[in-house]
């Protein structure tokens, strides 16, 4: 199943959008149903890991800390995500590897997959941030090719597409708020500082 879309963020420069979308904590907070996203090693245990609470977020957070936790190319991340599709509400134990990350073109590629009872998926995803033609904001282009199996897939695309659209729209409107907050503090130089660190 293929999903793709675009999202425009008026007044948010690509640099700011990039720094927020590079922060796993910001992504977690914007993604409804996501309990955590954290770097993992081979011994990672979904049962035992406890999501960090009260994490400092941009713009208040220390840019050093944020830069430190930013998505790394080739790093594998664990995410726990609950998705509700009709009466089916599986909790997906997901692993994602950032396969490519380009700070110049603001492009990030990821691949991974997840399992829940009776359902599973694997996916290749990507996003690229463009500057709006009027120079006053960002246009985020995203795409996903997903293979979905099991109970959720049985519901068919006419059920899945609206659910995925809802998750994505919800995500971008949440993340837009975070980006706006960050951008308002732009004068403090957080973004620049972060950008240099990244």
């Amino acid at each position, binding site marked *: 199943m293929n999903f793709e879309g675009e999202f425009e963020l008026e007044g948010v420069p690509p640099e700011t959008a990039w720094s927020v979308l590079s922060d796993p904590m910001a992504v977690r907070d914007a993604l409804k149903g996501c309990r955590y996203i954290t770097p993992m090693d081979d011994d990672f245990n979904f049962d035992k890991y406890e999501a960090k609470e009260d994490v400092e977020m941009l713009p208040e957070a220390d840019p050093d800390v944020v830069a430190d936790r930013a998505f790394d190319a080739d790093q594998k991340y664990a995410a726990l995500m609950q998705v509700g599709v009709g009466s089916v509400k599986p909790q997906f134990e997901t692993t994602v590897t950032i396969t490519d990350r380009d700070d110049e073109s603001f492009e990030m590629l990821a691949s991974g997959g997840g399992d829940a009872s009776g359902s599973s998926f694997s996916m290749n995803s990507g996003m690229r941030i463009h500057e709006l033609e009027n120079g006053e904001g960002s246009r985020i282009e995203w795409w996903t090719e997903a293979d979905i199996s099991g109970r959720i897939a*049985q519901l068919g695309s006419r059920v899945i597409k609206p659910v995925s659209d809802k998750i994505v729209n919800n995500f971008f409107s949440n993340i837009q708020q975070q980006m706006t907050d960050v951008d308002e503090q732009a004068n403090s130089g957080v973004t620049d500082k972060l950008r240099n660190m990244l």
Partner: protein
Amino acid sequence: MSSESDNTAEPREYQHDDDGGPQPEKHCGHGRGGMGEEVTRKEDKRFITGRGNYVDDIKKPRMLHCEIVRSPHAHARIEDIDGSRAMALDDVVAVLTADDLLEHDLATMPTLMDDTQDVLVNDKVKFQSQEVAAVIATDRYAAKDGAEKVKVEYDVLDPVIGAEEALEDDAPVIREELDGQDDNHIFDWETGDPEATEEVFDAAAVTVEEQMEYQRLHPAPIETCGCVADWDPGDDKMTVHMTSQAPHAHRTLFSQVSGIPEHKVRIVSPDVGGGFGNKVPIYPGYVVAAAASYVLERPVKWVEERSENIQTTGFARDYDMTGELAATEDGEIKGVKVDVLADHGAYNAAAQPSKFPAGFFNIFTGSYDIEAAYGSLTGAYTNTAPGGVAYRCSFRVTEAVYLIERMVKVLADELDVDPAEIRRQNFIPSDAFPYESATGWNYDSGDYEKALDKALEMADYEHYREEQQRRIENDADKLIGIGISSFTEVVGAGPGKQCDIAGIEMFDSADLRVNPTGNAVLRVGVQTQGQGHETTFAQIVAEELGMDVDDIVVEHGDTDTEPYGLGTYGSRSTPVAGAAAAVAARKVRDKAKSIAANELEAAEEDIEWDRESGEFHVVGAPDRSITITEIAAGAYMNHPGDEEPGLEATNYYDPPEMTYPFGSYIVVVEVDRETGEVDFEKFVAVDDCGNRINPMIIEGQIHGGLAQGIGTAMMEHVTYDDNGNVTGGDFMNYLLPTANEIPNFETGHTVTPSPHHPIGAKGVGESPTVGSPPAIVNAVVDAMSHADVSHVEMPMTPDAVWEVLDEAGLALEPSANVTFEFDDTTEEPADD
């Protein structure tokens, strides 16, 4: 009999009664509830008052519940199964995997077509929702929670969906564990005479060809499959209450699979809520529950959910067929050819007699006298659930009838002749019976023209033909189509020498015991899933012994008490077990004669039984008579010295031939050119099932089967996506017809008794499912045939019909007064 089986038995004598047997059309029921009478169903009292006893009603002390962990993938290797998180739950008692079953040699089980299916997957998953592990817990909720916690690691492989794709050179091999299996090909099958058929086609003035798919269906009984297995270590005995259409055959298979001696296995099939062929095979869930009961020494219940039933248990049909007819210019059919690609799923688990890999599909010459016929078929493995069960039909007869009845319509359109007339022209004449078909079947009796004439009259055929023409001329928004199907079935398998299930010959049995007080118990080897056996079989005994139907109780379904039988499917209950009941009753009648002679102080040869009065009397002195009730008392209280006491008999009946019920169905539809919707204007069903035992039960069977035929033609389809996900695997996506979709049926009948059956009956339960889909499709095609439409695939949903209308240039744009309103303001329900 089919020409493929060389195992031909010596012709056997027909077991006719001295007085010629019952004539229910003339002498209906004799006032005692005998044959022909509309006796109210004995079983309905308990069903209507909520006292039915189904598998899920059975509760035993210390009973555990089993939930099966199923694969989300259609094709994947299992790398690891970790049950520790499930075992950590308080109420979970055990998590079973293939490793546990291997210890007891229960990891695999034979299918009915001699393939080997995993009970729990040992290595590779071969279809979505296949059984991977089982969680046993103290209640059903806990078992379900536990199943969610079992962690399975898969190495996902490319799935193969669709028989055509499966046979491509580069298709992934599904069954590489089988010796020498390096592709997905299962078997090839041929029937008829290829050379003779080729000659007829070469010489023919007219030939037509059409490709048609009989889509994958599911029998979808309202009660899903389930069992309660109870191993008693005190008696070393396994008792399994299960949803079984064939309890004795299942007992033998259970014994063979488990190693428990057969006399220590008891299968009980209690009330069963519909079978339709779905409950003929053994499924992994039964074996897992039995294994769990054996290991844990507690009763274990397993009952499927709806989606598990549709996604993993025996499907039906899935035949991709190409048919051809050769005919003369004036419409005489000379030859028929058919080529089939059959999707069997991941295992060859079709449920049909073992010498018939394509079932009775070679009955595809239908009701017509056709000189030459040839058929070929290839079966393929795919990453889909196994199946090929006889869904309310006799082993692939449905597919055969669909093919020939569709092809006759295609030919009629090609020649521009009336489809009723071309049928009449080509029918096997009524004086040609017994008739041997080009593929070797011996039709017992038939009068096809009579049934068609009756149906034409009931349907007001000419009126609708005129109305159809009028609408075409007026360019009307709604077109009329008239579809006909004049089908012939072949049911009632055996004979045992030709037909067997896992080696066991397909006879059936009845055991009749008359009590001292004059009432009786009839035990039969077949089992009912709603057909009304408890009434019908009692009527046969009432007819043959002169008893009152209320004085006979029919028992079935318990292997500890019933005589061995092969079960209920393929319309075989009345043709086989019904014959056994009649013959057993006649044996009792023979013994009753000697008791009557003793009581009446006459010589036995001077005693005569009178079917009408139901009494025994001295020849020439009808006043000196005695009833079966009085005789029963004599059998126990005053038995003749040269006879054993008691009054009972058993019969194991091996039918000398099959029976050939037939009928003509006429369907009139209105097709909406704007929406593609199909409305039924008229639905006429004329059936001939030989002598009729209970016309009311027959009519009920016809109604139910027609509803299923409408589901088949209009709605039902088990669909898969490219990843092997079942996208038609629950009642949200696999649509069954409801009262909304069912029109008023007009039923009629003709009576052409079977010459070889002891009571002249043929079997009827499956005729409507078999006969109606081609009538419906023919009707929809007929509405568009003036625009050269030759075929519409099933299910004929409105959008599918609209596509055909559009392609034929018949579709109308939505009219101006139709507006579509979308309500964007609806609040979405909260996620939590």
